[in-house]
């Protein structure tokens, strides 16, 4: 444990205080990128590939159009190598000789008005030769199942524990099934938008809507041929992100930066909703196949999983999404023989990307559906089977990690089952009883979610937070939190302020937490992976503690009150000027991880959750209504219970959409079909069920004050809980998300035909 942090009675941690940014947002003062006045600014527009796969022969400008009024950028204008430096260098900023998805940029245009930019685009002919395309998960899953060499594998990884095949051969019973889920759109309220301005020194200043300011710096510096310090990135107010503003803003930053540098003036692009749905990243579609073995006594003998993600056209960060997926695909249950085979396949669609849960929801969807199938095969109820087999403290995960601390299992499971009287309700399930006016069902899911980065991620990124002692206002000294973590609506600024105030032992009014600007903040890593409160928050807490110590040393006495702080801090600032202290995150002692074999401690800690869904299905229409969700979570120390519950409520609604509504396919032109809010169906207030939510706290002692992740957790387990409840209600086992009345009907007809 970091030695500099003293234990004290926390004042702000644990309190459900209102958001520090609430007033600005409620009063409409918060400035989102499209609210900002951009003097001299032009509008950017992206010219896109018309078909999903083709060879680009050239771009022919219409001579009748007056091109002097606009600025056009093609791949030839890129000063450095034409690539975005993500997890590989395969994706170009602008396609140059081949394009791999419908809508991939082939040129960029800036003009004084958006209308003129769009008009110019209509006068630019794209000459191309169309090539064959693979468009859907089903095509790649078929290729995989038939060992078809045409399958384009973007990456692969396995996890091995014991010998799963041998254990399957010996098992008393083997249970096999396949599970699939389609794309999911993040549908943040504010669409993507950025502005780039050339700076005097040949560099560029990029600001707007984003999750990870330093990603833009590091992923673009090669293409722009600029040293990192000449790419300054600042976050504006962000209206939701959910992972959708993790890697995508780098692409958009590439478009606006190239246009701004060539046009020598600021350029802005803000997508409308239709463009945003068509041309930005979505959750990876998944196909998984479970083969599991059971022992006579109802314990699990073996788990073998094939886990295939549709990565879209380029790798981007799909490898790590798949890693998180395979690490959760057999997690949560005691089993000595596990084999997980993960891979990401290419389709000619927009690259799939980050979305709340980052592969874990796709894995848990299959796993927790399959656990019900195993329970049935073992002749047990779903809850008995889970209570019997769930991991507890001291058990070993599929990667061989021993769960030594902060294990909220079986607590979350037991408490949820008890709260909703699962045992009683289970007996009331309709199972498709003929003649009933309504079918009732209850279903459960249980899961862990790895907190912070996967494997050696935290060790490699070396997240730091800084606290500046500075003037908050004339005559008012205080601590300024300097981190690259972003507020996107989840409450990060509030939680970080609470942690900073407690680290300093001061009132919240002596702390400020501004939006990050890469010119001013150290790299505390991206705002992803449910790591902000746990990892960055703990660094802020540590840095604040150090700052207080430094002041006490300066004064030669302890600081016991706000008034004393004001005096001492003012004296310090008058004498020495601003003071910055930093704190680094360290993994728990003894952490070991082998990135090649995927053996060892895959995460520093785990959050735990249990969801119970109660559903009603209308036998007349097969309409599905989720009536109630009961859930317990262990997210370690709860820093702000109101915000934590808000995260869970909102996340469960998003998961509800994933489970029973959000259907988006690929049309014949290779584009997303539900590309407007008219056709992309998310839950409304009227669809939201009653929720009974609660926490059990198993603090994570290696990152004071002990928080673990919460952000992604609510997305993880609802879909399988609902599928399990639907089976209990109707007798129909649904294995493809979203579960719609149409699919229930089709499935019921197939069953009748048998």
């Amino acid at each position, binding site marked *: 444990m970091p030695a500099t942090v003293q234990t004290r009675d926390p004042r702000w941690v644990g309190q459900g205080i209102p958001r520090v940014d609430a007033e600005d947002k409620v009063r409409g003062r918060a400035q989102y990128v499209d609210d900002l006045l951009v003097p001299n600014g032009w509008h950017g527009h992206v010219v896109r590939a018309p078909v999903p796969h083709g060879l680009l022969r050239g771009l022919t400008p219409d001579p009748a159009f007056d091109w002097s009024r606009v600025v056009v950028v093609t791949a030839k204008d890129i000063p450095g190598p034409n690539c975005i430096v993500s997890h590989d260098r395969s994706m170009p900023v602008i396609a140059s000789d081949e394009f791999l998805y419908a809508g991939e940029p082939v040129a960029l245009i800036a003009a004084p008005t958006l209308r003129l930019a769009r008009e110019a685009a209509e006068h630019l002919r794209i000459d191309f030769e169309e090539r064959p395309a693979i468009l859907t998960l089903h095509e790649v899953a078929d290729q995989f199942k038939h060992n078809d060499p045409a399958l384009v594998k973007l990456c692969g990884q396995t996890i091995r524990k014991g010998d799963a095949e041998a254990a399957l051969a010996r098992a008393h019973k083997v249970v096999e099934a396949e599970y699939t889920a389609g794309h999911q759109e993040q549908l943040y309220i504010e669409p993507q938008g950025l502005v780039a301005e050339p700076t005097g020194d040949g560099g560029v200043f990029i600001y707007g809507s984003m999750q990870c300011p330093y990603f833009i710096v590091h992923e673009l510096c090669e293409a722009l041929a600029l040293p990192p310090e000449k790419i300054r990135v600042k976050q504006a107010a962000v209206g939701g992100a959910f992972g959708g503003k993790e890697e995508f803003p780098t692409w958009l930053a590439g478009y606006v930066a190239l246009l701004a540098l060539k046009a020598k003036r600021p350029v802005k692009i803000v997508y409308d909703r239709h463009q945003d749905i068509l041309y930005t990243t979505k959750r990876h579609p998944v196909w998984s196949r479970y083969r599991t073995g059971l022992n006579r006594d109802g314990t699990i003998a073996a788990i073998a999983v094939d886990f295939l993600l549709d990565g879209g056209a380029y790798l981007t960060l799909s490898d790590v999404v798949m890693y998180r997926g395979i690490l959760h695909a057999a997690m949560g249950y005691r089993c000595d023989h596990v084999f997980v085979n993960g891979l990401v396949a290419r389709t000619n669609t927009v690259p799939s990307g980050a979305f709340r849960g980052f592969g874990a929801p796709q894995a848990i969807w299959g796993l927790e559906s399959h656990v019900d199938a195993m329970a049935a095969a073992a002749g047990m109820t779903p809850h008995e089977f889970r209570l019997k087999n769930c991991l507890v403290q001291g058990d070993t995960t599929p990667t061989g990690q021993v769960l030594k601390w902060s294990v909220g299992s079986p607590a979350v499971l037991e408490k949820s089952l008890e709260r909703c009287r699962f045992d009683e309700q289970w007996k009331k399930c309709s199972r498709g009883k003929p003649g009933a006016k309504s079918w009732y069902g209850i279903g459960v899911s249980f899961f862990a979610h790895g907190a912070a980065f996967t494997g050696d991620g935290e060790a490699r990124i070396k997240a730091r937070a800084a606290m500046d002692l500075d003037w908050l206002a004339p005559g008012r000294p205080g601590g300024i939190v300097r981190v690259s973590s972003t507020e996107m609506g989840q409450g990060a600024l509030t939680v970080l302020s609470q942690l900073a105030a407690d680290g300093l032992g001061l009132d919240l009014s002596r702390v400020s937490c501004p939006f990050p600007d890469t010119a001013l903040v150290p790299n505390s890593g991206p705002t992803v992976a449910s790591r902000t409160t746990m990892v960055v928050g703990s660094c802020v807490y540590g840095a604040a503690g150090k700052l207080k110590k430094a002041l006490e040393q300066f004064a030669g006495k302890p600081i016991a009150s706000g008034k004393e702080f004001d005096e001492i801090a003012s004296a310090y600032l008058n004498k020495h000027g601003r003071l910055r202290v930093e704190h680094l995150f360290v993994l728990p002692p003894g952490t070991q991880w082998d990135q090649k074999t995927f053996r060892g401690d895959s995460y520093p800690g785990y959050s735990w959750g249990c969801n119970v869904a109660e559903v009603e299905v209308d036998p007349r229409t097969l309409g599905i209504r989720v009536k109630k969700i009961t859930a317990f979570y262990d997210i370690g120390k709860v820093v702000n219970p109101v915000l934590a519950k808000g995260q869970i409520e909102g996340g469960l609604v998003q998961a509800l959409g994933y489970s029973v509504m959000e259907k988006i396919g690929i049309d014949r032109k290779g584009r997303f*079909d539900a590309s407007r809010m008219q056709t992309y169906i998310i839950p409304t207030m009227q669809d939201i069920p009653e929720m009974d939510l609660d926490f059990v706290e198993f603090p994570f002692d290696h990152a004071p004050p002990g928080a673990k992740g919460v952000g992604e957790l609510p997305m993880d387990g609802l879909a399988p809980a609902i599928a399990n409840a639907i089976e209990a209600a109707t007798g129909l086992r649904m294995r493809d998300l979203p579960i719609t009345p149409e699919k229930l009907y089709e499935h019921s007809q197939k069953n009748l035909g048998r």
Partner: protein
Amino acid sequence: MRTVEDIEIRFPGSLAEALAWQADEKTRGRPLAGGTDLMVQWESGVAAIPERAVSLWGLKELKGIRETPRGIEIGAMTTHTELRSSPLVREKLPALAAAAATVGGRQIQNRGTIAGNVANASPAGDLAPTLLITDGLATAASASGRRDIPLAKLFTGYRKLDVRADELLVSFTLPALPAGAREKFHKIGTRAAQAISKVMGACRVRVQNGTIVSLAVSLGSVAPVPVRLPELEQWIAGRRVDLNLLEEVERRASAEVHPIDDIRSTATYRKWVSGRLVRALLEA
């Protein structure tokens, strides 16, 4: 490249002025009611951007709900909010009031009008089935006079109406629910609110001593236009309502429609659920 901002929107002072403009191609504009369909269609490129639009929203001649010997007369610019809250409509045209209450959300109901819903001529327009079951009529006006169009003949094809370019819909006249009859509307949407219909329908039925005297039933979203089910209606007259009958109704209603796959649902589900829906409409 023309956009919504390029449209010249004109505000007539009276219906007569609007009709005079519509009579001449050089002054004619796209009729604009609440704009809840048009604004969306213009913005998304589904509808062509016209030179001009003529706003009918403020025309007093097109407002109001009154009882006449021919039936309830509803002005073209009556909003969904007015329909759902009018005591007259609720009592005499309960299916229409129920349908209006399911359109979009409150904001849409405050702006969207009965004429816009009908003239948009979408098979998913929620009001049409409730109008069709009344055997009422629409009235169109032009500079040269008025014309009554039986509702059964109004919808001529996908997004097509029997209304000329120089005409405007001015009112709907809908025979009230006769004594001893009942009406119902039922909608199967994509979610609990703000839902466009997968299938929706309405029926007006008279039952005497357990026997069906007459039935009018209409479905939307199962064909290019909202439809009545004439075969079922003829077959059922004079039959006793019992479980066997309901099962046969379900089978026949399903057989009588030929829906398609689209983004909201599938042909097979729509066909099946049409039968279920008609059955549910008849179940008391």
